[in-house]
């Protein structure tokens, strides 16, 4: 009996230690975002700010006139990308699972093949294609290439394959066509799958660093990760501002995560990849 409780204590000890190791960088960043620069430079190791201030947060919005714009760009791009993905991936997944059109198998095979292609190979060509379309430094350049995601087409197909056929047949008897059936019957019942998809696509877009880095060069089209990176260059030793900006950037993702927590776990176990 005693040995078992000793083991339990060991397990808790391990978990708590690991939780602390995970949490400290965030706590430390958060704490710095509420400290005046002087207190940071002093080098005290206090997690609770001695002179608590909101000045850093006010400053990043006023000093860096583009910060609000970056926040908007990130949000706008992430929302559009998420919306398009949900609609297009689900439509494609549904067609592959349920509509027997000529070439169905071929398309599905192509999507499976495409799942393996790493992003780096398409990077340079995508840049050149966007350049020739005149889409560099534009919202469509940031949004259109990411409107569809093969991983989630595959996921939606798997979801729809197991979807009860009777519902669609009932809808057909009620005189709904495919399009109406899809929107009025199928999609509302696919909400859990859509939520898992939404959270992954949103986070992927919100946190994406690489694509904006090559698509965008003018500062007013920056998304937050890029903005943050130049911010670092500009305010190189103003860690108070950099940490405040980092917190502003992290908060929306955290809120969405908290809201969709359950689906996030489903999504991780399904897709097995980040972003």
């Amino acid at each position, binding site marked *: 009996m005693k040995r078992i409780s000793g083991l339990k204590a060991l*397990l808790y000890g*391990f*978990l708590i230690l690991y*939780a602390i*190791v*995970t*949490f400290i960088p*965030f706590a*430390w*960043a958060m704490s710095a975002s509420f400290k005046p620069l002087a207190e940071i430079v002093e080098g005290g*190791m206090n997690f609770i700010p001695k002179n608590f201030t909101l000045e850093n947060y006010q400053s990043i919005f006023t000093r860096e006139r583009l910060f609000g714009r970056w926040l908007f760009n990130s949000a706008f791009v992430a929302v559009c990308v998420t919306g398009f993905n949900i609609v297009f*991936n689900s439509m*494609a997944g549904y*067609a*592959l699972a349920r*509509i*027997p*059109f*000529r070439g169905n198998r071929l398309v599905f095979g192509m999507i499976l093949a*495409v799942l*393996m*292609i*790493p992003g*780096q*190979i*398409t990077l*340079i*060509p*995508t*840049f*050149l*294609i966007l*350049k020739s379309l005149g889409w560099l430094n534009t919202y469509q350049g940031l949004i259109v290439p990411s409107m*569809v995601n*093969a991983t989630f087409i595959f996921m939606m197909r798997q979801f729809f394959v197991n979807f009860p056929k009777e519902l669609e047949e009932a809808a*057909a008897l009620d005189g*709904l*066509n*495919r*399009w109406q059936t*899809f929107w009025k019957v199928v999609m509302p019942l696919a909400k859990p799958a859509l939520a898992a998809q939404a959270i992954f696509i949103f*986070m992927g877009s919100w*946190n994406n*660093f690489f694509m904006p880095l090559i698509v965008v060069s003018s500062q007013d089209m920056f998304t*937050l*990760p890029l903005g*943050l990176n130049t911010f*670092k*260059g500009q305010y190189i030793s103003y860690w108070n501002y*950099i*940490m405040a900006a*980092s917190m502003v*950037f*992290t908060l929306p*993702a955290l809120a969405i995560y908290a809201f969709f927590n359950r689906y*996030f776990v489903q999504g*991780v176990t399904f897709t*097995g*990849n*980040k972003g």
Partner: protein
Amino acid sequence: MPASSLNSEASRSKKTRSFRFSPSLSGYLFITPALMILGVFLGLPILYAIFLSFHKVEILGEMSYRFVHLRNFTRLVDDGRVWIALKNTAEYVAIVVPIQTFIALMLALVLNAQIRGKNLFRVVFFLPTITSSAVLTLIFMWIYNADGLLNHFLEGFGLPTYNWLGDPNIALKSIMIMNIWASAPFFMVIYLAALQDIPESLYEAAKIDGANGCDRFVNITLPLLKPVTFFIIVMGIIGTFQLFDQSYIFSGGSGGPNNSTLTVVLLIYQYAFKSLEMGYAAALALLLATAIVLATLVQRYLFKEDMPQ
């Protein structure tokens, strides 16, 4: 799909007049947006990348291509920076993947036990997974500062301190530590799901046969986790192979100090977008992509063979 079943499907819907479009037509309508985007921004780029890798590309002013046979590929072999990037990337993969897999397994095993506050632990462990690499890198750069939190902490325990960002012997290790810290909990989730799929009855049967906890772990848990472990290792290799954000932000895009954080993807970026040698960069990207596709294929193949039941 055999033609006969397509026809019967079509005539059935015509008869009932329920689906007004023919199945084929509505199928195309549903799939077209996805196909167009995937075609233009995935299919076309793959072919384009192969084309580029055999050309010298001029992108300033009028765009032009000059066919250079295999010169881009032969140049790769003589390029010292390619070898440095490969060496760094290989070292990175070889150290990060085993450690993060091990930690992920440990965390999952502990969390799978009868533990109170599981959900709280999960939420904390997930924090790095949902935080952007840009933010994580900035936070760690600050913690790694010469007089930053980590060095103060090490000093406090009388341990040696390091110049985490500036020392060429340490800089890549700093990124490794951060990456392991950030991605182990992510793989933990996959392990957790797999652990929950192991039927309790197996353990009970083993208990009746007199197997102790250690036996049960070695003879039931580990073998049943083998496919997932394999999956996680390959995912880890593919992920670490593509390291870019962290080394880009850490080094301000240079791969420094002294090329110590130069990775293959960062090198591709530098050649393509700094020195504008698109053809040469495409050749390097093709090399990396081939390696990744091979890893994925091997994984697909073995993973299928190795599935339980």
